[in-house]
């Protein structure tokens, strides 16, 4: 059933190729030469699907993101935080988006947004760190989990060919989701910063020599790890230095907001439009741990990711990549149904996920989680997040069983 979209995608790919050729004079213009070089020798198909992950860190309040405005229980549980029906941006007769999310509402209107309701996992853990690790590795604490679902998928699907299959844009530590048996993900704070000062040739040679020579210290996994990470970083950086054009020109016409997330997504759009052929981009937005005075903070954050995503989808469309780019948005958990006495909410469980892009089957998937049939004061999940991952990996045409630590049935989330 779910395979039908693949043939459709193949069909669309031809169209995408045509438009890329038509736009040939502008593709990659102004991008660093190293990025252009990086893909020169690659056999990969530049029309491969691309996944962009937006991680909302801290636990996004699903109930105030997708508001069940017909539900009295919602208003009873949240005397100060509930969003009134007339404030919401209506999705249907029962549900409305947070009023700050006009851009998301527009995506929904345009048929490029899928909302998957009630996503979680059995025996939910309400620790930020443990729950995030579960989302990143698809494994519980008791299991060996050195690698992330994305890192593992890439290792399985693209064992050798690409130099930068995964790109993480941000100054925070690299998300565990990207960890792989040999590091495959490049983290970049900004393109301008990704350049080594000093005698990089000599350093690269010394690193290579250290790696090749029989190390006196045997079995030091940390040293191996730093060596391969340094090689990968220097390789990409050396190519950057070779280039003369280090400044990325803003060659799109879409205006992005002046927020960190929007800027990262703008860079992502430019890189997708370059020959780099990175398959997964990963960005995060922190601050969703709203235990106190939630209303204002959540409004600002909701507006930020909604606006950034809206601009990104418009940009990607304008650049002709809308069919091959899907954005996935998640958070490590939702929040408690009842607000607390600090006008905030504590850690909860199931919450919505979002997929955006022209390839997705738009609409609201699944029912809103019940506010009456609950567990430990929290929402029960209807979908396991690994079903969503499996569906996305399937769309990427990548195997999912190893990365997800099991077979999960896919969902009809793509056209």
């Amino acid at each position, binding site marked *: 059933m779910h395979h039908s979209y693949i043939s459709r995608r193949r069909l669309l790919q031809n169209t995408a190729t045509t438009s890329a050729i038509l736009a040939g004079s502008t593709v990659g213009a102004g991008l660093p030469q190293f990025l252009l070089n990086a893909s020169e020798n690659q056999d990969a198909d530049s029309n491969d699907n691309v996944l962009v992950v937006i991680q909302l860190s801290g636990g996004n309040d699903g109930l105030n993101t997708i508001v069940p405005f017909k539900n009295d229980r919602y208003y009873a549980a949240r005397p100060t935080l509930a969003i009134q029906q007339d404030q919401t941006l209506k999705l249907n007769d029962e549900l409305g988006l947070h009023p700050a999310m006009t851009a998301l509402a527009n995506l929904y209107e345009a048929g490029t947004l899928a909302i998957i309701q009630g996503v979680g996992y059995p025996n939910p*853990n*309400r*620790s*930020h*760190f*443990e729950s995030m690790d579960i989302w990143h590795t698809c494994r519980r*604490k008791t299991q060996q989990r050195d690698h992330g679902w994305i890192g593992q998928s890439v290792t399985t699907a693209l064992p050798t060919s690409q130099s930068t299959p995964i790109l*993480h844009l941000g*100054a*925070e*530590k*690299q998300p565990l989701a990207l960890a792989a048996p040999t*590091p495959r*993900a*490049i*983290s*970049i*704070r900004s393109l301008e*910063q*990704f*350049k*080594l*000062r*000093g*005698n990089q040739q*000599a*350093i690269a*040679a*010394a*690193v290579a*020599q*250290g790696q090749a*020579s029989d*190390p*006196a*210290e045997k079995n*030091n*996994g*940390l*040293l191996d*790890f*730093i*060596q391969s*990470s*340094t090689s*990968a*970083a220097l390789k990409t*950086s050396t190519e950057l230095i070779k280039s003369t054009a280090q400044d990325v020109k803003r060659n799109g016409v879409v205006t992005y907001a002046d927020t960190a997330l929007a800027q990262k997504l703008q860079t992502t759009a430019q890189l997708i439009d370059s020959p780099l052929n990175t398959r997964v981009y990963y960005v995060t937005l*922190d601050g969703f*741990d709203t*235990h*106190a005075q939630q209303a204002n903070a959540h409004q600002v954050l909701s507006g930020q990711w909604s606006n950034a995503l809206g601009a990104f989808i418009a940009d990607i469309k304008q650049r002709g990549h809308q069919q091959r780019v899907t954005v996935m948005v998640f958070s490590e958990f939702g929040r408690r149904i*009842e607000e*607390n*006495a*600090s006008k*905030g909410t*504590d*850690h909860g469980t199931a919450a919505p996920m979002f997929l955006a892009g022209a390839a997705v089957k738009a609409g609201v998937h699944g029912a809103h989680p019940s506010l009456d049939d609950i567990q*430990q004061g929290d929402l029960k999940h209807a979908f396991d997040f690994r079903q969503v991952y499996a569906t996305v990996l399937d769309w990427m045409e990548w195997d999912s069983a190893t990365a997800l630590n099991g077979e999960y049935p896919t969902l009809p989330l793509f056209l």
Partner: protein
Amino acid sequence: MNNIDPAWAWSQFKSTNRQPWGLTQAAHLYRRSGFGAGRGELQRAVAGGVQRCVQQILHDNQESQSFQDEMALMTRSIVSSGNLQSLATAWLYRMLKTTDQLHEKTTLFWHGHFATSADKVQDAFMMQQQNDLLRKHAIGDFSEMVQAISQNPAMLLYLDSANNRKTHPNENFARELMELFCLGEGNYTEQDIRELARCFTGWEVRNRAYRFNKYQHDFGKKAFLGTQGELTGQQAIAHVISTPAAPLFIARKLVQYYVMDEPAAPEELLAPLAKRLRKDKFQIRGTLEMIFRSNLFYSEHAVARKIKSPVDMVVGIMRGLSIKTDLTQVAQRLQEIGHGLYFPPNVKGWDGGRTWINSSTLLGRSNLMHALIHSETTTFGNTSLQAHLQHNRIHSLAHAATYFSDMFCAVPLADNSKSQLVASSQQETNNTEQQFKSLLHQVVSLPQFQLG
């Protein structure tokens, strides 16, 4: 790891031919128990023997009164300026200059353990007050420290507990108290969190100070972690610390910080440390002493089995080469590569280990070192790098390569690597000072240097 005999591991290390006490071991001890040392100090440590050296690190290195006064004056003026960024500058200065290196290293440990960010607190006074609190208790009584931090205004603000009312208590502090401060995830239930949160109701911050609001405190009976009663917040904390998971949790974190990033030590290996902690009524000093005197600490399981934190990396090289520079810039750059003092990334602090390293931070580390070495404000022992090395009887690039490797690399550089680095420094420039600087920058950009 699983076949390390705990009895052997924690027995006292004795210098033998097979396992000598030499410059490598002394450098290892100084890197782990503090922020490294200069050549002279290491040589004195080797001559004095390991037992005397550990004794000194643990008991005899107290700061002078004049140094404490100097630091108090410095932090007071920063606090009155309100500049949050400058707090880190003063702390870096203290790490560089203090005689009590272990104390500062352990204060940094607790800053990561009871992580609180100025980004949210936005108050220099409260942030410095917390820093002083961590320093006061750093190698003292852990129970007292937890009680104090629980009423610390910066912490209460950071964990949203400044307004905690008895109806619908805020669970954040109760959760982190068990998950991150005392027990570790998996040693409590969600129900325990809800009950524990009730004990902290009425704990408030007013006018930058802790206040107990009896009208908002839930005086009812609570039941958690196998106890019940009309427990106050203080009694609740004491009970949390009395459970078996607590000493194991602290022992695990100490081993990870001082001994090895990975693999995670099995419980059997941690048990003797946990026992010692319990026996010492959670006085930290004895456990640290056990660590620094142990076979395990000087074994292959520990040497070169940690990745230097950015602060370790920078302060270590500055102490090792008597570098003076503009510390404001250093503090700023440390923040850029993920180690902003007073600005931990989240309540869990810094994970350390492999998470320090990615392509961005690797280039960032190298670039930070480049800026440090080449800055116009930087001096080495108040002079040039070349003159400083000559003062230490290092006259050639080849000799310098060995010197840098011995001093700063937990895994020594191979001879052919060193000659290659020397050759490329000579190719790069004819200026001898620049050659030494280039050589130094190359060494500190190598993987071997990143190991602590």
